[in-house]
């Protein structure tokens, strides 16, 4: 990942989009941690057993899918803009 030779501070829109890409990177890590949460409840008295874990896992799954859908929708714009900018700068067609 090399630094882009762009301006030091980005316009508000591009700034937002970069943070979206960051969010897309964080999402799987967050998901992995949250999916491990049921392991913590195991020994405690509050543990509701398989049913509770099931509801939690499938609920979390749905949330992750929705988040991923929203992020990839917005990242599409990001990517195409970046490539436009890139090819405009270099005069070459991005692959």
């Amino acid at each position, binding site marked *: 990942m*090399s630094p882009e*030779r762009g301006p030091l501070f980005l316009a508000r829109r591009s700034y937002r989009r970069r943070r979206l*890409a960051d969010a*897309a*990177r964080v*999402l*799987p*890590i967050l*998901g*992995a941690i949250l*999916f*491990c949460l*049921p*392991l913590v*409840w*195991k020994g405690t008295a509050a*543990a*509701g*057993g*398989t*049913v*509770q*874990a*099931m509801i939690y*896992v*499938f609920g979390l*799954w*749905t949330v*992750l*899918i*929705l*988040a*991923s*859908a929203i*992020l*990839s*929708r917005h*990242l*599409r714009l990001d*990517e195409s803009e970046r490539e436009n900018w*890139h*090819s405009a*700068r*270099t*005069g*070459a*067609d*991005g*692959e």
Partner: protein
Amino acid sequence: MTVLNLLILVCLSYVVLLFGVAFAADRAALAGRASWLRSSVVYTLSLSIYCTAWTFYGAVGFAARSGLEFVTIYLGPTLVMIGWWWTLRRLVRVGRSQRITSIADLISSRYGKSNLLAVLVTVLAVVATTPYIALQLQSVTLSFAAFAETDPTATTLPDMQSTALWVAAGLALFTILFGTRNLDANERHHGVVMAIAMEAVVKLFALLAVGVFVVWGLSGGIGPTLERIEASALARFEVSGGRWIGLTMLSAMAFLTLPRMFQVLVVENEADEHLRTAAWAFPSYLMLMSLFVVPIAVVGLDMLPAGANPDLFVLTLPLMEGRDGLAILSFLGGFSSATSMVIVAAIALSTMVSNHVVMPLWLHYSGMAAVVSGDVRNVALMTRRLSIAGVLFLGYVYFRVSGGGTALAAIGLIAFVGVAQFLPALMGGLFWRGATRTGALAGVLLGAAIWLYSLFLPSFGASALLPQAVLDQGPWGLGWLRPQALFGAEGMDPVIHALMWSLLLNVAAFILGSLLSFPQPLERLQGAQFVNAFDQPGAPGGWSGGMAQSEDLLTMAQRIMGAREAQALFADAARRQGVAGYLPEPSPDFLQELERALAGSVGAATAHAMIGQIVGGAAVSVEDLMAVADETAQIMEYSIQLEAQSQELARTARQLRQANETLTQISVQKDAFLSQISHELRTPMTSIRAFSEILRDNQDLTPEEQSKYASIIHDETVRLTRLLDDLLDLSVLENGQVDLNIQTGTLEALLDRSVRAAGGDGDGFRIRRVRADEQVELTTDLDRLAQVFINLISNARKYCDAKPAILEIRARLAEDRLVVDFVDNGSGIPTDKHAVIFEKFSRIGQTRASGAGLGLAICREIMERLGGDIAYLPGQKGGAFRVTLPLDAGRLPARGAA
């Protein structure tokens, strides 16, 4: 009709449907109506081959044995998919820009195109996948047997072995038919992908239908179902943390490294767009697949007798309740899961085996002679077909030998750990420039060895392949080397134990090997291109073909691809560039296209080297080298782009200069012709005038003298008329006002006639023909065609400078066209004259022979009227012209269409 017979019937119709769908999709793709075949939806559905029969049947069994833990197998891929920005985006980008054909290809390509590494990966992939294929065969036979057991009328149970054999043979047939349509592994297998997408829908629908039936039909709704789970043996959430985390990681790794997943994820991927959709759509698919697994397991445990196989609950629950329709649907779901996995796995493995093992061996033993003779293509296709049959046969043999005893899920996880050994080399290759071939080799070798020793071999059961003593006390009594308790790690789950040790040591060897070794130049180059996949716009390694000679390229391509294919490719490229004839400009685009076409026959590496030989020096371009240099590359990139642009400009300028030269030449010729035509017209005119004056003024001429002068006037008039006829002919042809006199006759008769009219052979001029090839019925304007032939033959007679001059006339049929080549053995026409010979008034050199330079221009006009073409054919011994003509008279253009 009994249920079993009905099942067989449904199953056969389903197979017919599958063939039909694949066939229709292939046809649609051929007809260019395939845009929907490339949609994101089809891509997402094709990913569902992750869900094999192990998932379809085995997940319920898994859940019945260990509760919610089964879900980890889906959580891993879910996390990988929603994390596409990290890895998959890069993987897909690299896969497309490097034209990767398999995971073995990717790893070998990254580490300096090392074939040793490719062979290692291939062998490990085959070893790990064979049991997996056996598992699919087993699931189909088991589900068949489940039906047979409930059928009271079935007198004999179907033989398990023969069912498996039939299934394997059918799958081999399907895969060979639709998976080896084309040699280029990068081209999409539309038929296969479409069939798999359909199977994805079938299996999801089947599992959801059984789930709905179990929850609402058998348990009475969601609330009661949850209560039932609370009351069951699975109520307590008792997963071990190690297995939960370990299996999630394992499935995530396997999702990236399984050869079949790599095939659909990377090789068949066509656009980043697909990945964006799949990022949320595929996790949804996985969630739906696992939604009803626990309810089905609980209800199955509850309602079915104690000894029932939990792996078959999906099937036996509807059967027990007498829902035969649902049971058959469920069977089809399992059948779909099994077949789609086997088909893609066989394609992926056969590509690897044929590209990295068989073809290198074959080329090595048959030498370069084979490459030149042009039969490489068929050999490669045949190897791939044989590999598919071989892979499926291996799976069948494994199924026979293992006897199908182990629980389904066990084999699946063992295979996962096996392919996970590719991950360090794969990820290290994508993210770490310092990763080297030595490191990758050491890592994969060590990881594979530990996997074999601690998981794969013991899985055959005690004393089967590893003696019991080794399992209990370790080899030579070394307790710390016990396969399932390495380094004293006792009491661990065997899968997690093997995963931990194999990967730990794999990564350690990979890093250590990379740190201690020094990479070769090609390795460093590839490493830079892989790691910086996003920083380089455009494809890597572009040719800059300034010095390339199109004619040399054509000669080489003809030898490898066959004359017809090569000429078609060149003519097509020339047409797209707007250049007439067979020689396109050697632009980088065209060179890349040519390299890709050659790679289909001789492999990417050989093709690259061959073009490099002719184009010269571009094998490692400036651009590539810049990528190796570090940050300076970023700064220099802009100037490289400028350089590319200036090259482009230079090319355009060259083309313009050429066009200008042609125009100037034509103009000069026109001037020359005008003076000549005035001269030609003037000479006969002068004598006609002189002799007619004599006839008018001298009354005392003898009758002999009168007749002599009159015949001179007549001859001169005839000469004048001929010249004017030619001019008129040309103008009529050019204006498209010609009437065609359509007749039918054989090419042989026509050529005989033309040869006679052109003066026959003799006088040091010989004509060679193959009369057997000339038995072609022609329906066209034979007189006009004869005019073309006569012109070509007499041109050869006039201008061929060899002693003795030999003209070869070769005729052949190409699809619906007749192609006649006239090739002489003279010095031919220099390249700079190719552009003008078909122009009016053009004569090569300062004319030795008579003629106004209208012959070839007339020929070209005639052939255009006849719906055909005449062109100069470069790359032959001497001067060569090719006449092409459609055989079908109906395709003649309408009169005056010009």
